[in-house]
C-alpha cells in the first residue's frame, strides 16, 4: 500500500504552490460553509431582516404626532391656528382638554406628545395688538421625535392669520424679511431618513456578518481538534488566512448586491455616482472587516469568546461611525475613536457615492484610511496566528 505521488523535492515551493494551498483552504472552507445550513441561512436573512427593519421602521422625522388642545377662546383666530397645525401633517389633534391640569396629565402620561393652549380672549387681545401668547408644550424627552414638528410650528406661525389680518388690522400682519434666505437641501431634499439609513445599512450589515463568520473560523478549528492536523501540514498561516477569507469575500459581495438591489428597487435610493467604484470600495471594506474578524479568531480561545469580541467591536462601529447619530455631534474624543473604525470611512464612501455622486478623488482620504486599517489588521492576524501548539 504505497502512497500516491512521488516526493519531488522541488514540490511545495514558489508562488504557484502557495496559490495551490490557498485554493485548498478556499475549497475546504466553501464546502464547510455549504454544509452549515444555519450559517448559510443567517447570511442571507440577517441582511434582509435588517434592511426591512431599518428601511421601513425607522424615521427620524416623524409626522402625525398626537396632540391635545385646551381652547379657552372661541374666536376664528383660534380655529385658524388649529387648522394650520393639522395641515402641516405633523400634528394629529386627538384630545381636547378641559383644564390646564388635564393637559399636563395628557402629556405626562405620554398619551400625547404636544399640548396647545389658546388662552381666553386670544382673538380680542390679538386685535388690540397686545401680542397674546399661544402656549405649545412639547414632550421633548426625545429631541429627535419633537424636532421636526417644532420647526414646522415656527414656519406656520408667520402665515397662519394672513386671512384674518386684513383691512383695519392689516398692520398687525407680519412683515416680510428685508432679504431672502435661500436654502438648498442637497442630496436629500425631502429629508427622507431612508436615503441616509439604507446606504449606511450596507456598512453595518457587512460589518456584522463578515466579522462574526471569520471570527469563528479559526476558533472552530481549534475547538473541533482539526487545527492539530492542519498545523502539521505544510501550509503557512498567511495561506490559511487568505484561503479562509476568500469565500467570505464572495459572500460579502453577494450580500452587498442583495442590499444594493433592495435599496434601489424597494426604497428608491439612487446610485448617483459610479457603481464600479462603489463595488471596488465595498470589497475593500469587506476585506477590512474580514481581517478584523480573523484577528479575533486567532486571539479567542473559544467560539463564544470570538462572538463576544465581535460584538464588542461592532457596538462602537454602530454608535460612533455616524450610522445612528450625527458624527459631527460627538465630542472630539468620540470622533477620534470613530475615525479609527472602518465603518466610519465606509459610510462616507457609500453615502458619498450613492447620494452625492462623489468620485475617487473626493473619497481618497477615506479609501486610504480603509486600506491602512486592512493592512494593519491582516498583519496582526498573521503575526498572532500560532504556528505551533505551544
Amino acid at each position, binding site marked *: *500500500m504505497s502512497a*500516491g*505521488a512521488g*516526493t519531488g523535492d522541488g514540490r511545495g515551493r514558489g508562488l504557484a*504552490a502557495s496559490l495551490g494551498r490557498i485554493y485548498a483552504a478556499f475549497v475546504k472552507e466553501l464546502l464547510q460553509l455549504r454544509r452549515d445550513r444555519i450559517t448559510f441561512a443567517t447570511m442571507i436573512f440577517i441582511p434582509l431582516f435588517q434592511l426591512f427593519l431599518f428601511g421601513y421602521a425607522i424615521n427620524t422625522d416623524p409626522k402625525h404626532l398626537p396632540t391635545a388642545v385646551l381652547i379657552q377662546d372661541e374666536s376664528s383666530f383660534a380655529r385658524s391656528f388649529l387648522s394650520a397645525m393639522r395641515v402641516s401633517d405633523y400634528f394629529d389633534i386627538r384630545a381636547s382638554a378641559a383644564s390646564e391640569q388635564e393637559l399636563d396629565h395628557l402629556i405626562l402620561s405620554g398619551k400625547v406628545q404636544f399640548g396647545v393652549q389658546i388662552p381666553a380672549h386670544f382673538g380680542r387681545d390679538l386685535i388690540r395688538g397686545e401680542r397674546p401668547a399661544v402656549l405649545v408644550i412639547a414632550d421633548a424627552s426625545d429631541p429627535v421625535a419633537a424636532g421636526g414638528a417644532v420647526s414646522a410650528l415656527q414656519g406656520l406661525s408667520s402665515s397662519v392669520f394672513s386671512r384674518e389680518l386684513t383691512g383695519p388690522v392689516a398692520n398687525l400682519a407680519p412683515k416680510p424679511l428685508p432679504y431672502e434666505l435661500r436654502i438648498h437641501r442637497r442630496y436629500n431634499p425631502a429629508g427622507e431618513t431612508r436615503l441616509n439609513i439604507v446606504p449606511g445599512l450596507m456598512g453595518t450589515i457587512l460589518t456584522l456578518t463578515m466579522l462574526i463568520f471569520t471570527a469563528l473560523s479559526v476558533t472552530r478549528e481549534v475547538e473541533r*481538534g482539526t487545527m492539530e492536523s492542519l498545523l*502539521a501540514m*505544510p*501550509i503557512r498561516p498567511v495561506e490559511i488566512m487568505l484561503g479562509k477569507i476568500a469565500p467570505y469575500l464572495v459572500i460579502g459581495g453577494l450580500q452587498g448586491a442583495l442590499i444594493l438591489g433592495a435599496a434601489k428597487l424597494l426604497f428608491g435610493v439612487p446610485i448617483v455616482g459610479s457603481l464600479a467604484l462603489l463595488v471596488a470600495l465595498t470589497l475593500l471594506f469587506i476585506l477590512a472587516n474580514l481581517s478584523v474578524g480573523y484577528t479575533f479568531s486567532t486571539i479567542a480561545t473559544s467560539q463564544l469568546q470570538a462572538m463576544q469580541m465581535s460584538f464588542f467591536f461592532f457596538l462602537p462601529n454602530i454608535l460612533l461611525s455616524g450610522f445612528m447619530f450625527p458624527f459631527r455631534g460627538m465630542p472630539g474624543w468620540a470622533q477620534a475613536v470613530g475615525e479609527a473604525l472602518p465603518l466610519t470611512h465606509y459610510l462616507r464612501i457609500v453615502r458619498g457615492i450613492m447620494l452625492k455622486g462623489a468620485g475617487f478623488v473626493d473619497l481618497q482620504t477615506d479609501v486610504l484610511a480603509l486600506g491602512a486599517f486592512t493592512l494593519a489588521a491582516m498583519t496582526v492576524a498573521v503575526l498572532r496566528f500560532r504556528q*505551533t501548539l505551544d
Partner: protein
Amino acid sequence: MTMQPATQPEPASEIVIDVHGLTKSFGGRTVVRNLSMQVHRGLIYGFLGPNGSGKTTTLRMLCGLLTPDGGSGTCLGYDILTQSAEIKRHVGYMTQRFSLYADLSIRENLEFVARVYNLPDPRAAARDAIRRLGLENRADQLAGELSGGWKQRLALGACILPGPQLLLLDEPTAGVDPKARRDFWDEIHTLAHEGITVLVSTHYMDEAERCHEIAYIAYGDLLAQGTVDEVIADAHLATYTVTGPDLADLAERLKALPGVDMVAPFGTALHVSGRDAAALDASTRELREHGPQVWTPGDATLEDVFIDLMSRTKDNFA
C-alpha cells in the same frame, strides 16, 4: 545506543530521527526530560508509557508542532528547531483524536490533503487513496459519520497520501476493535517494508511486540529502549508463574514480602517478579516448597517489565 534487532526486515542503517536532550515543560511541569533517541529507516518504533508520560509531546516536537525548550536534533535530516516547514512536507502525523473534517466527505477530506501538499493531480490522488482504503462505496459519506475503525483507516490514508518518509502515529488504535487493529498493523508493516519509518505510540502490549524496537517513557523520562527481547533482558526480572487455589489471598501475602517487586494476576495464574533473583527466591522458598499452589520459574513478559517500570517511576517521582 540503538542496536540492530534480529527481526528487522532490511539492514538499513540510515538514521531518520536523531534527537538529543529534548526537554519540554508546560507551566513549570516538565513533560519530557532530556530525551535522546535514534530511529533507523524502515523501522517500526513503538513508543510506550502510561497516560501523560510525554509520548504525545515527543511526537509533536518531532513534527514541529511544539518547540522544544531544550535539546536539538534532526528529523529526516532536517533540524527540528529551524526546518519544521521541510519536516512537515515529508512527515505524516496522525493525531490521537480524529482531526479530519467531520463535515467534509471522505473524498473532500482527501482532496484537501492532496492540495495542501501540492500533489500534481489531487482528484486522482484522492481517488487512488479511496480505492486503497476500500472506501469506494462511501467516498461521499461525511467523515464524521464513519465508525471508529473506519475513521482511523481514513486518517491513516490521509497521512500516507502525500507519500511521507516518516509516519508519526499517536495511539492510532485506541478504541478500535481487534480485527481492525490487526488489519491496521498489517498495513503498518507493509508500509515499513516499503521503506517508510513508523513511530507509533500505544498502550497495548501485543502491539508493542509487533514493533521492531520499542522505547518506554514515563513521566518525561526514557527508561528503556531496544528490541522487545533486549528490553526484557535489561530489566533483569526474575519471575515465577503460580497456579493453584486461593491466588488472591496469596497475592496479598506476597506483596508484603521482601524481594517481591511485582505481583500481577494473568488469567488463572499469578506472575510474581523481583529485580533481585536471590532475594525473591529466599523470601518465597517456604511458599514454593509447601504449596498448595504450583510455582514454575519462567521468563518475564513485556507487560511484567512495563508494570515494574511503571511502579518504579511512581516510587521515584510521585
